[in-house]
């Protein structure tokens, strides 16, 4: 994150509607830099967020995110429209993250999830820490969540981020990652359980202080 600190940020544009996106796709098929620039505007924040959480090194995350868009621009003629543009971009991002992890000798691990209790009741989180309606987290809880996401395996992390952060459907995620829908759901369940365990530990510790 230090690479981004203290530097003027770009305001990520609002998401594109279907018609606008389709028009931009046609421009990009003709290798229009202007058209592709608008796609970058719409997706750069989301792709960077995904890549940064998939790959903890901020410098590498910035480079990988650039590579995502360069690859997308170069390979746009290969985008046949069978999947959505979002699915296609995140597929590229996921593959690059996995490739980078392999080169860094960071093999993905599958950790066994063990419940702290059998209850399926939600955790009690104070209002000042989290406003679900406004989607606001206090800094400490945010840090705990980020560390919880970072501590799970790559396979669980990618599904959690694509579903809960990017709000992609199970079918989209299955297409992007090349796995069955059942596997997507299993991994999502495990990822949330892992995160719950992590947050619950923090909440218990903080209440004990």
């Amino acid at each position, binding site marked *: 994150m230090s690479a*981004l600190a203290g*530097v003027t940020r770009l305001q990520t544009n609002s998401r594109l509607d279907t018609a606008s996106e389709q028009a931009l796709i046609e421009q990009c098929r003709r*290798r229009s830099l202007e058209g592709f620039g608008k796609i970058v505007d719409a997706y750069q924040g989301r792709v960077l967020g995904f890549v940064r959480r998939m790959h903890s090194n901020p410098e590498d995350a910035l480079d990988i995110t650039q590579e995502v868009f360069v690859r997308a621009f170069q390979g746009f003629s290969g985008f046949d429209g069978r999947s959505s543009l979002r699915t296609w971009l995140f597929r590229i991002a996921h593959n690059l993250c996995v490739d980078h992890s392999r080169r860094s000798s960071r093999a993905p691990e599958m950790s066994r999830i063990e419940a702290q209790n059998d209850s399926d009741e*939600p955790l009690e989180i104070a209002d000042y820490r989290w406003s679900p309606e406004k989607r606001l987290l206090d800094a400490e*809880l945010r840090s705990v*969540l980020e560390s919880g996401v970072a501590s799970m395996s790559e396979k669980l992390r990618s599904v959690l*981020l694509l579903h809960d952060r990017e709000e992609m459907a199970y079918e989209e995620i299955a297409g992007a990652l090349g796995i069955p829908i059942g596997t997507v759901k299993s991994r999502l369940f495990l990822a949330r359980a892992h*995160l719950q365990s992590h947050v619950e530990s923090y909440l218990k510790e903080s209440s004990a202080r």
Partner: protein
Amino acid sequence: MNREPIYDPDRDERTLDAMLNRADQRQMGELVRSLPEEEPSLAWRSALNERLRAAAPVRRPRAWIIGRLGGAAAGLACAIFLAWLVAPKVQESTQQRRQPLVEAQSTGDLLVAAYQDMVTTAEFSPAGDVLEPTGEDFSPSWSDLDIGSL
């Protein structure tokens, strides 16, 4: 503490849907959704733009294309014009080389014809006329011939 596994691989998709719909699961989903978006810097975006420009196909400006085509067309036109200029002179010189041969043939033919006439006249001259050499060299009358043209 119960350490029983949460995940059973034999469960079907409907069971998974029910599990994912639990309150605690949905709460974790909401928490993740609340994580802030990343905002790239201007410097990062500028660097990306440079990389994209380098990856873009080279497009020649229309004026450049027109200039190249125009130059090629002008060169071709000049070549055709020069060929047109040179071609008649080549033809003329070719014709001039041929003319003396034609004239020579005409003069030779005239000489032959003149001699034959002379012989014929001698053969058919009236009796008694004996053409005797007068002591002068007998030679055909060249007066009708343009000796100078030979």
